[in-house]
C-alpha cells in the first residue's frame, strides 16, 4: 500500500487551482471533468513531479464548512508542506499577498509558519532541522 494522493477541501476549485499553482508554485497533474462543476484536480510539487499528488477536493458537503471554520478560528492547519527555508518562503508568499496567521517560529527541532490558502484552509510550512 502506498500513499499517492492526499486531499485539501477547497471552497472553489478554480480559485484553488490559481492559488496552488500561481502562488504556491505547484504543477497541475490531472484535471478531469467529473460532471456538474466538479473536477478531479490534482497538483504536484515541481521538485517531485512523480510524487504524491494533492487533490483539490470541492468542499460541497454540508459538514465541511463548520469543520473548516472551526479549525481556522483556532488557527489549526490541517495540511502541511515541507520547505527548505521557512523564512524565505514566508517572505516570497507575503510578497504575493498571502496572509499568515503565524509568522516563522523556531519551535526547537522545527521552524514553522502558517498561512491562509484563500480556499478556507490554513496550511503549515515546516523545515525540520537536521
Amino acid at each position, binding site marked *: 500500500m502506498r500513499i499517492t494522493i492526499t486531499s485539501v477541501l477547497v471552497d472553489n476549485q478554480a480559485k484553488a487551482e490559481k492559488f496552488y499553482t500561481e502562488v504556491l508554485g505547484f504543477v497541475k497533474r490531472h484535471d478531469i471533468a467529473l460532471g456538474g462543476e466538479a473536477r478531479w484536480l490534482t497538483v504536484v510539487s515541481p521538485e517531485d513531479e512523480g510524487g504524491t499528488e494533492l487533490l483539490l477536493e470541492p468542499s460541497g458537503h454540508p459538514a465541511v464548512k463548520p469543520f473548516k*471554520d472551526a479549525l*481556522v*478560528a*483556532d*488557527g*489549526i*492547519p490541517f495540511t502541511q508542506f515541507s520547505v527548505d527555508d521557512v523564512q524565505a518562503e514566508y517572505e516570497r508568499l507575503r510578497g504575493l499577498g498571502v496572509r499568515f*496567521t*503565524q*509568522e516563522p*517560529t523556531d*519551535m*526547537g*527541532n*522545527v521552524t*514553522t509558519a*502558517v498561512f*491562509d490558502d484563500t480556499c478556507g484552509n*490554513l496550511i503549515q510550512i515546516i523545515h525540520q532541522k537536521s
Partner: protein
Amino acid sequence: MPIVAVVGDVFKALADPTRRTILDELTDRNGQTLFEICARLSNKHGLASSRQAISQHLDVLEAAGLVQTRREGRYKFHYIDTAPLEPIVERWLSRRGRT
C-alpha cells in the same frame, strides 16, 4: 471590594506554571492563535497538555484580564494584557516604606 477580587483572580491565574509559560510566549510574540500557543508549549517546553486544557488555561487568563482575544476575520488571536499587574506594582513596589 471588587478590586480585591480582581487582584485575587490575577494571582490565581499566575499560580499555575503552564499559564505563566503561556504569558512568556505571548511576550515573545503578541497575538497568537490557539494552535500557535499549543505548538509552542509542546515543542519548546515539552508541555503535553491537550488543546482543551490549554483553552481552559486561556479562559482563566482571560477572566483575570491578563489575556484578551480578538477576532480578526476568520481567525481568533490571543494578546497579553499586563494592565491587571499594575495595581500590584502600585500597592507594594511603588510605595515601599523606607528602610
